[in-house]
């Protein structure tokens, strides 16, 4: 019944303003215990009022009053007082009686944006639930016509509209939301700040806004001239976590970018986990073209590149070691993350400094509206994060912390070297965002972590990461904004050994990076998006410092000279929509690098291999003096041609230069790996990638198919002579060899992103080969022939599936297969000094057994009532369901006169976990 009245009311609301204002009649009469029905009839007969009410609500109500030329509104206030009934009278003299809630018979002030508001009417206090209220606001906002700019009758030409898209609940920016109009088809996506700028023909438009996990909305706009419109989006109220696969459906086909994968934290939280915590590095591994040398390591090998060839950014600060606890955890606390973008090819000009790929991780912004907290507990780690406004809608904070609280897990490890060991870590995140005004935003984000572990109870390893970034965003006008960023990264580790007091030592390594950059985004018109900027990075590296530890130690202090360098760059890139079908991105980055003194540099005999025996002289360079300089252009190009609305082809080319490299002669990233700046002997690495892609959407975008092929060449990669010494080496140039590499592959991806059954399947064929080039045999590996890199895994298949049985039961399955990585195996054994020893093959001539893993998880939700004390869900997951003992490594040892071969598996049996989540 109520609905009936509401519909009626709404109907009349729509027409109400079109009616002319009539004088409200006043009421005179006498009622003494009159039934409400009778009262109504009486008034209707005497006046032009017409009542709408539900008789069931009023059947017991009687009226006792003697109005004398009284306003009906006033009379009804008396009559209905204490009954729980409300009334509303519209301009058409319709009277609505409602229970519990008042009917709004008027539109809000200035509903039609005429600039004229009805004065004098008091605001009505509504008693809607928050949800209904927001729904209402949304509907109002959607139906309202927004006038943008200065009103004019001249609607020729174009104007730009800009603003922020934010989450209505938390006020945090919505990144990657599509903002578009359909006729003509013009669209943009919000940037990392939730900012968009779109240039449209002047006039009336229906602006649509879509983003994953958020309710789509639209705005009616009348665009007169340049102006702003901020948009708030509501979160989609689906208590079931859905696997939302990457970004908007159309981006793959219609966007200009290729080789980009975006994932948000909601997607990542779906995947079955090994250690009870969402780990973005592990999730990224399920994407085509991403490999690792073994589970438990966080190093990513992207399209045949080495782990150090990835630029890992966390809120624009460079992360040098993305791992905790031997690599079982990544440095990123899932509670504070927002999203992750991985660029595998077609890297745009604003990124540089690494050869292979960019992994851009951004944290959330704190809730601008209210305080909130989240946390988690697992046997290994505990986490807590808090967020909220410091000044509501202007200034927010987000603080997250994570720590291990016990070492017991190590006792469970069967790896002998890990027994009697300890390991712990903690990390802290802080993020502040301050909206100074519409034109200026300031962001501060900091990260700090510390890891500590002891292997075999004699050597203590410590490493820590500290990052700070400051960002100031200034909007000059709708078409231009700039971001000034400065950042500081510090990665250091130390090794302390005190088992033998006489030889006790402490060895330290540190790298510091200070950078500043300015990025400008310019949107001259709908066809162009221009990004340009400049930046500089100062590196200071302390490659090794060994000091005696304790008073009894007689270790000689040994400190390698610090290295310092300056890397500067300039870039400009234009995204240009040539036509409906053809889009082009053309960019160029120019980087300059200087390796600076003070430093002593050794010289070697010309034409001789760099060895101790060929060392000639030492040249001393003064502070600030340039020892070596390198520079060069880095062109970036991509082209899209739309074959149809649902299919496109893209090609891209990019060149990258890298001036800092990690030196590691272990297969997995080790906490003791050192970094080395390019100098006069170690040339900067140069990589070129050519890629081609074909993209097709089927069934209206429900199913996406993509194919990408690439060919990559790498110059000046660093590889090592057999028996290289990397730590505390005063002349590291004698132990490294210069390698060239090439990598090629083809990736297929088929994805269904919605429906009861969703997920993706991918297949990748890829190769990654290296070759050392030198005329001196001592500087070659495998006699100068091409050999597979340690992460060359030709075949890889990934399947991620999600099936929703009902609103409350959800089943996920994750399957991974890949070829085993290359290893060097012993060919022969021989006897030396009475003990057997091994003679190994040439490098990487064999492979460990193929890798296969199947994980499942079931998610069970509590009931879906919106109002209840706590929302809970259970997740049952089994990692490595088949219990396959995947080889992490194969190794041979000679012990007690016998040679034995072993296979080490990290997760060699099914690992069940139960997770209980609740929220209130």
């Amino acid at each position, binding site marked *: 019944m109520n609905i009936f009245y509401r519909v009626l009311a709404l109907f009349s609301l729509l027409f109400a303003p079109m009616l002319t204002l009539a004088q409200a009649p006043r009421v005179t009469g006498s009622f003494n215990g009159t039934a409400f029905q009778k009262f109504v009839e009486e008034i209707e007969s005497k006046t032009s009022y017409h009542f709408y009410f539900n008789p069931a609500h009023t059947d017991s109500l009687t009226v006792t009053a003697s109005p004398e030329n009284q306003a009906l509104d006033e009379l009804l206030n008396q009559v209905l007082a204490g009954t729980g009934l409300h009334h509303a009278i519209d301009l058409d003299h319709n009277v609505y009686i409602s229970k519990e809630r008042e009917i709004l018979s008027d539109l809000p002030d200035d509903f039609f944006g005429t600039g004229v508001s009805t004065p004098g009417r008091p605001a009505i206090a509504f008693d809607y639930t928050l949800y209904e209220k927001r729904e209402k606001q949304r509907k109002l906002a959607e139906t309202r016509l927004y006038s943008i700019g200065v009103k004019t009758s001249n609607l020729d030409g174009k104007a730009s509209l800009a603003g922020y898209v934010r989450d209505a609940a938390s006020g945090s920016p919505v990144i990657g939301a599509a903002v578009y109009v359909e006729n003509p088809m013009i669209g943009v996506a919000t940037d990392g700040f939730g900012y968009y700028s779109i240039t449209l023909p002047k006039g009336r438009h229906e602006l649509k806004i879509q983003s994953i996990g958020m309710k789509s909305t639209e705005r009616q706009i009348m665009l007169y001239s340049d102006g702003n419109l901020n948009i708030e989006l509501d979160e989609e109220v689906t208590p079931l976590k859905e696997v939302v696969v990457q970004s908007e459906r159309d981006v793959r086909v219609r966007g200009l970018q290729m080789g980009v994968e975006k994932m948000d934290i909601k997607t990542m939280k779906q995947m079955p986990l090994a250690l*009870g915590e969402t780990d973005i590095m592990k999730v990224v591994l399920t994407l085509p073209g991403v490999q690792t040398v073994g589970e438990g*390591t966080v190093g990513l090998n992207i399209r045949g590149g080495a782990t150090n060839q990835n630029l890992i950014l966390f809120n624009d600060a460079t992360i040098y070691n993305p791992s905790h606890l031997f690599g079982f955890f990544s440095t990123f606390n899932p509670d504070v993350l927002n999203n992750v973008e991985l660029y595998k090819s077609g890297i745009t000009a604003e990124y540089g400094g690494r050869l292979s790929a960019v992994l851009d991780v951004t944290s959330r912004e704190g809730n601008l509206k*209210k*305080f*909130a*907290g*989240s*946390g*988690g*507990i697992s*046997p290994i780690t505990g986490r807590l994060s808090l967020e909220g406004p410091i000044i*509501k809608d202007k200034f927010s904070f987000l603080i997250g912390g994570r720590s291990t609280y016990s070492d017991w897990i190590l006792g*469970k490890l069967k790896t*002998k070297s890990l027994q009697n060991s300890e390991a712990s870590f903690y990390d802290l995140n802080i993020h502040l965002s301050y909206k100074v005004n519409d034109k200026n935003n300031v962001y501060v984000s900091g990260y700090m972590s510390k890891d500590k572990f002891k*292997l075999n109870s004699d050597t203590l390893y410590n490493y820590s990461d500290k990052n700070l970034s400051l960002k100031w965003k200034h909007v000059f006008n709708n078409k231009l904004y700039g971001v000034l960023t400065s950042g500081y990264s510090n990665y250091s580790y130390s090794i302390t050994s005190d088992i*033998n007091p*006489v030889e006790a030592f402490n060895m330290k390594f540190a790298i510091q990076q200070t950078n500043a950059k300015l990025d400008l985004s310019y949107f001259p018109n709908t066809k162009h998006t221009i990004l340009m900027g400049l930046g500089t990075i100062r590196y200071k590296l302390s490659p090794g410092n060994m000091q005696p530890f304790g008073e009894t130690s*007689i*270790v*000689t202090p040994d400190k390698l000279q610090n290295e310092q360098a300056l890397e500067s760059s300039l870039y400009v890139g234009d995204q240009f929509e040539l036509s409906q079908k053809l889009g082009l991105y053309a960019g160029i980055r120019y980087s300059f690098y200087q390796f600076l003194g003070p430093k002593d540099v050794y010289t070697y005999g010309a034409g001789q291999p760099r060895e101790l025996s060929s060392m000639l002289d030492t040249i001393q360079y003064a502070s600030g003096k340039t020892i070596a300089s390198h520079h060069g252009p880095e062109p970036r190009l991509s082209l899209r041609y739309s074959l149809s609305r649902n299919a496109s082809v893209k090609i891209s080319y990019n060149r990258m230069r890298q001036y800092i490299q990690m030196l590691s*002669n*272990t*297969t*997995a990233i080790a906490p003791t790996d050192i970094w080395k700046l390019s100098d006069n002997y170690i040339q900067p690495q140069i990589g070129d990638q050519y890629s081609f892609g074909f993209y097709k959407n089927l069934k209206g975008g429900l199913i996406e198919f993509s194919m990408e092929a690439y060919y990559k060449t790498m110059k000046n990669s660093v590889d090592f002579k057999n*028996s290289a010494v990397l730590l*505390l080496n005063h002349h590291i140039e004698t132990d490294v060899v210069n390698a060239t590499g090439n990598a090629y592959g083809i990736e297929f991806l088929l994805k269904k992103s919605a429906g009861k059954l969703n997920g993706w399947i991918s297949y990748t064929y890829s190769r990654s080969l290296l070759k050392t080039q030198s005329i001196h045999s001592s500087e070659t590996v495998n006699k100068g022939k091409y050999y597979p890199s*340690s992460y060359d895994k030709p075949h890889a298949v990934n399947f991620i599936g999600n099936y929703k049985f009902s609103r409350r039961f959800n089943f996920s399955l994750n399957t991974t297969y890949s070829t085993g990585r290359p290893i*060097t195996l012993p060919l*022969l*054994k*021989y006897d*030396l000094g*009475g*003990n057997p*020893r*091994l*003679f*190994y093959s040439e*490098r990487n001539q*064999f492979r460990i057994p193929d890798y296969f893993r199947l994980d499942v998880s079931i998610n069970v939700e509590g009931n879906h009532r919106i109002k209840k004390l706590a929302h809970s869900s259970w997740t049952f997951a089994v990692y490595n369901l088949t219990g396959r003992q995947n*080889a*992490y*490594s*194969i190794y*041979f*040892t*000679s*012990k007690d006169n016998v*040679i034995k*071969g*072993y296979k080490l598996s990290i*997760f*060699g*049996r*099914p690992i069940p*976990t139960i*997770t*209980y*989540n609740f929220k*209130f």
Partner: protein
Amino acid sequence: MMVTRKTYAQIIPLFLILLASCIEPYSPPEIEAIENILVVDGFINISDNTASVRLTQAAALSDGATSYAELNATVMVEDENGSTFFLTEQGDGNYYTSGTINLDITKKYRLHVTTTNQKQYFSDYIEVKATASIDSITWRPTDRRDGINIYVNSHDDNPENIYYQWTFQETWEYTAGNYSMYKLVDGEVELNTQNLYMCWLSKPSTEINIASTEHLSGNLVRDYQLVFIPKGAEKISRKYSILVEQRNLTKEAFDFWTQLKKTTENLGTLFDPLPSQVLGNLHSQTDSNEPVLGYFSGGSVSKKRIFIEIGDLPPDLRRSSPPPCAIEQIPNDQLSGSPDMLLIGTYGVPVVEGYTYSTGKNCMDCRDNGGVTSRPDYWD
């Protein structure tokens, strides 16, 4: 400002996550046989003016033998001035100088091998290193008191001699579980006159023990750990001895042994170095691409021996009791049908009903554990 508090807590894995790492034996794929590779293990000893070289061929991993002897080669040591000393084969690929040769510590020497198939091999010229004497061999209980560690201490007054290598031979005295007084021979009980109760077992070191004082301000080695003996081990059940030999290495030799250790001993961690071919200082004259394994070095050797008796150990580290032996009985009337065996003693009082014996390993014959019954001449 309205403040609402929202707590989102996640209680992750109630079920214990047991990291399920495991190590299991691995047999490599069949690798096709590659050509014979010569292995040279040579040393010229200026302490006693001798040279010894062992020539072998590397064996496939699946072979039962570790190596095959390279026989009938022509082996000589040459000095820089062209003087040569011949070594002659004395079986199983071992080549020795006959008698003593006149070595000069100031000269450099190289090895020259010609195999029966006329291939020529040379070593680099090596420096002959004088070795300082060992300061001391010490031992002490571990901090966890689960055994004892034996250490070597040394120093060298020559600041150039900073690379040390130790090899050692452990010898220990131990007993069988029971003294066997009798033995059964052809169904007849006889008194056992042979000592099968007490044995001595010797074992050479199996790991590469090297140290460098490069990073130390003094050229001294303190407490380099050679051996760990767990509490209750047979090694220290009565008396134990270790003879340590020390050699001074050249830098090249030290690097060689370091690499060999890295690629054959310190493996199986999460961060293993990439194993690689470790080649020494020998080359084929005939084919420069042919790998030659092993090392040729020279110098003097210093030795030191210590003894540890069970009484020297703190009481908590002494062996409380030997492994138990199940005693069985054989009645007199079954003696004649039984095979020859050792017997411990008799049972039955006052009339001997039969004899006792044990079938457990090392229960009646200490040679079961690999030792010999002859007392070494340095044992006192």
